[in-house]
């Protein structure tokens, strides 16, 4: 099979290049992955904040399955840069004592559990008295 004129050969090569571009170089979607084999921590419950004296605040909560939880993080909701949550502190027990330099009354706080697989779970929120 021969192409007799240069123009026709160029046209055929362009066509062939197009076919190759379509069939060879295209990305494809294959192998949908299995869900990650990580343990999600339970969401803390009964999260309450008390104010025993001055600027001291007690944070208490419950957890349904403490055996898969290695710690907790407490956040001031909306207190971070760009409106994000600001990390107040970390603890390994379901209680946290914090002293603030000023009153935090009516501010919202959140607590999240961290699983033994390093996944930080859903937040429970409470408003400081």
């Amino acid at each position, binding site marked *: *099979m021969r*192409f*007799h004129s240069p123009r*026709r050969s160029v*046209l*055929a090569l362009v*066509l062939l290049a*197009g*076919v190759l571009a*379509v*069939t*060879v170089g*295209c*990305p*494809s*979607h*294959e192998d*949908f*992955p299995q*869900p*990650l*084999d*990580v343990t*999600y*921590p339970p969401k803390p419950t009964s999260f309450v904040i008390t104010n025993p004296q001055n600027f001291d605040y007690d944070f208490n909560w419950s957890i349904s399955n403490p055996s898969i939880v290695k710690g907790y993080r407490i956040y001031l909701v909306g207190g971070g840069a760009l409106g994000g949550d600001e990390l107040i502190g970390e603890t390994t027990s379901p209680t946290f004592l914090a002293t603030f330099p000023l009153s935090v009354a009516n501010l919202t706080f959140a607590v999240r559990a*961290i699983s033994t*697989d*390093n*996944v*930080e*779970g*859903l937040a429970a929120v409470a408003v400081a008295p």
Partner: protein
Amino acid sequence: MIRGKTMRAAAASAAAILLATAAGPAAAGTSSVLKSIVLPGTGQAQDGHYTRAAIFASAAIISWTGLFATQINYARSAEKYNNEKRTYLSYADLTAGGQVVLQEDIESTYAEMQSAWDQADHDETWRNVFIGALVVTYAVNIVDIVRSKPDTGEVAPAEPSTSLEWRGDGFRLVRTVRF
């Protein structure tokens, strides 16, 4: 490497058509066959079959245009899926390395990855439809141009008319010949 069954089937079909055309005896001229391989319909146009030429050329142009448009869509959605998949799988490495990852991030990435997968599936289906249309167009076009004869413009002579006339005691066969 050609990925996917459809791609391999399309490439194999195209190769088979080209080989069959190159190897087989052609009733039409070699020039018109080659033209039809390059662009369906051009060989038929050269042989004077303009209606078929228009049909094949239109089908080829629509198929090529549709194929490239759907291929672009598919490439985009496949790339989006691959990015989401890469991000999702990286969470396993991060948590294994001791870094804490938010559950919401893992779940939202999984949802995005699932959505991108569905979109890629949808786009791939349409891409395959146009690949099929292109293969069929080329196959029918090549078969047509190989089997057809050039239209010389000559009008075939009319068959002599023949009639049967009944008589009282029999019948008479009349054949009319015009000069």
